[in-house]
C-alpha cells in the first residue's frame, strides 16, 4: 500500500512537472529562431516530444495508482517461487541494513547538506584537504568510531589520488588556499 501511495505522489509530481516543463521551461529555456522553414527542425520540437511522452506516462502512473488505491489493492505478490523471489529482491539482499525511520531521515538531510557543504569546501581548501575532512566526517556520520582505520584511510587515499592525477596523469588538482 505504501508503494502505491508513493506512486500516486510521484505521478502527481510528474504531471505538475510536465506542465511546468512544457509551458514554462521550454519556452523560456530553449531559444528558437524566429523563422524556421520546417517546424519539425525547431530546437523546441525534440524537448516537447519528450515532455509529452513524460506527461502521458505520468498520467498513466497517476491513474494506475489511483485505481489501485481505490480498489484497496495490496502490493502483496502472488506466490513467488525462489527464482522470482530472488529476482524481486535482486541486488539488495543485505540483511544487515535497516532504515532508521525519523532519525534516519534527519541524518539523511544532514548528509545531503554536508555533501553540498563539501562542494564549497572543495573550492576553498582544494580536493585533498577537503577529501580528508569529508572522509572523517562521513565515517563518523555513518556511525564508525574506529579512528585507527578512519584517520589513515582519510589521509592516504586523497594523497594517493593526488599523486596519481597530478604526477602520472598530468591533471592539475586544485589545492584551494594551499596552492
Amino acid at each position, binding site marked *: 500500500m505504501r*508503494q502505491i501511495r*508513493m506512486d500516486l505522489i*510521484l505521478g502527481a509530481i510528474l504531471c505538475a512537472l510536465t506542465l511546468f*516543463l512544457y509551458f514554462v*521551461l521550454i519556452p523560456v*529555456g*530553449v*531559444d528558437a529562431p524566429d523563422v524556421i522553414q*520546417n517546424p*519539425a*527542425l525547431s*530546437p523546441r520540437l*525534440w*524537448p516537447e516530444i*519528450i*515532455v509529452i511522452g*513524460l506527461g502521458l506516462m505520468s498520467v498513466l502512473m497517476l491513474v*494506475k495508482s489511483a485505481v489501485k488505491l481505490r480498489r484497496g*489493492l*495490496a*502490493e502483496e505478490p*502472488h506466490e513467488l517461487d*525462489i*527464482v522470482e523471489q*530472488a529476482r524481486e*529482491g*535482486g*541486488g539488495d*539482499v*543485505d*540483511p544487515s*541494513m*535497516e*532504515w*532508521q525511520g525519523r532519525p*534516519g531521515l534527519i*541524518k*539523511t538531510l*544532514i*548528509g*545531503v547538506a554536508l*555533501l553540498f557543504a*563539501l*562542494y564549497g569546501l572543495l*573550492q576553498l581548501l582544494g*580536493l585533498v584537504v577537503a*577529501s580528508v575532512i*569529508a572522509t572523517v566526517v*562521513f565515517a563518523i556520520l*555513518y*556511525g564508525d568510531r574506529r579512528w585507527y582505520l*578512519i584517520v589513515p584511510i582519510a589521509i592516504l587515499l586523497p594523497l594517493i*589520488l*593526488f599523486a*596519481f592525477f597530478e604526477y602520472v*596523469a*598530468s*591533471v592539475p*588538482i*586544485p589545492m584551494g588556499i594551499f596552492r
Partner: protein
Amino acid sequence: MLENLIAAFGLFATWQTVLAMFVGVAVGVVLGAIPGMTATMAVGLTLPFTFLLDPVTGILLLLGVYKGGIFGGSIPAILIKTPGTPAASCTVLDGYPLAQKGQAGRALDMALYSSCTADLISNLSLILFAALLAKLAMAFGPPENFTLIVFSLTIIAGVAGDDLAKGVVAACFGLLLATVGLDLIFGTDRFIFGETELMAGLNFIPVLIGLFALPEIIDYFGRRATAMAKVTAVEGASASFADYKRCFKTILRGSGIGVFMGAIPGIGGAPAAFLSYSEARRVSKNKANFGKGELEGVAASEAGNNGVAGATMIPLLALGIPGDVITAVILGAFMIHGLQPGPVMFQNNLPMIYAIFMGIMLSSIFLFIIGKVGIRAFRRIADIPKSLMFPMVLVLCVFGSYAINNTMFDVLVMFVMGLIGYFMLKFDLPAAPFLIAFILGPILEDTFRQSLLMGGGSYEIFFRSIINWIFWGLTVLSLALIIYQTVFKHRHIPSG
C-alpha cells in the same frame, strides 16, 4: 586481412595493454566482491583513469574491470548471501546453501569455471558476429539508425524494472537532460540559462557517477548495520573435473542464453542469469535440490551472467548501440578518445577492433588466473564495512569527476545528479534507462533531424526501407509484450 591482424597485434601486444588488462580484471574482481559496489560503479570510477591511456589500452582496462566485476559479485553472494552485483543475486540461491554445508570452495570454483567458460564463448560470439552485423549495418542511414535506437530504448525502458511507465519516465528524463547545450543545427541555447559551462551539454561521466554511486552513499546515512554478516570460511574441497563435466551442458546452455540476451540491446546480465537458472532447474535431474545447494544452479547463473559480457559488445561495436549500462559507459570511453564505434569503425579502423578482440580473449585467461589465485584472498573484501567504503567511494567520485575536464562544475553536476538519483531510488525509478537514454538521446535526435532534412521534412522517410519496417515492427512487438507482461502479472496479484 593479414596486415590488419599484424597492425592489431602491434596495438595490443604492449606491456601497458597487457598490464592494464590484468589490473583491470583484478580491480574488477575486488570491487565486484564488495557488496554495495556494482560493476557499473566500478567501471564508472575506473573511467577517469583511462584518460592518460591510449584508446585500446583504456577500453581493454574497462572491459577487464567489467568482466572481473561480474565474476567478483559471486564471491559475497556465496559467502555472505549478499550479491556483489545485481546479476549475482541468482548465484545466492544455491551458492550460499553450498557454503553453509561447508562447500564454499567448491561453489566458488564452479562459479569461476562457469564464468570463464561462458566468457570465452561470449568472446568468440563477439568475434564471429560483430563483423557480420557491422556489414549489414552499412546499409543503415539516419532513418534506419533512428528506428534502431527507438527499438533499443523500448527494450531498455521495459526491462529495467517491474513498471514500464517508470522505465519510460526515467528514459524521458535522460533524453531531456541530454538536450541541454547548444542546438546542433541552429546553434541556439537549450536550457543553458547563461551558464557557459552548459554550452557543451552535461558530461556523461559526472552524470553516471552521480546516478550510480552517490544514491547508495546518501541512502546509507539513514541506515544502520544491525548485525555484521558473518563471512563463511572458504573451506572444503575444490570443484573437481568431474563436477565441471557434470555441469558442462548447463554451462553451455547458460552461455548461449547469455550470448543471445547480451546481443540484444538493453537486457543485461541479471535477466540472463535468472533465465539460465530457470532453464537449468527445469531440465535438471536434480530439480528438487535447486535452492538447497545444487552446484548446477551456481554454474547456470554464473554462465548466464558472464555469457552476456562479451556479447553486449556486439551491438556496441557493430552498431554503436550499447548492450547494457556498462557498455554505455564503454561507449562513452570510445567517445572520449574521439572514436565512434559502429560500422564505420569496422571500415576505417579494423586493427583497433581486432586488437580489442585479442585483448578480450586474453582477459578470459586473466580472469581464470586471478580468480583461482585470489578467491581465498578476496573473501576478506566482503568484510569491508560500508561506513569506511562509502567515504572512500565518495573521494574517488570527487577526483574522478574533476579529472574529466579539470572543472569543479562537473563535481557540482555529480552532486546534483546524486540527489536526483537518490529521489529516483526512493521512488523506485530505475537509473539504467535514464543513463542509456542520456547517452543515446543526442544520437536519436540527430538521426531524427538528419532524416527529416533528407526527406525534405516528410515523416515518410522513417518508413523508406524494409529495415525501418522491421525495427518498427520489433518496437511494436516489444511494447506489446511488455504491456502484456505488465497486465498479466497484475492479474495475479490478489485484491484486498
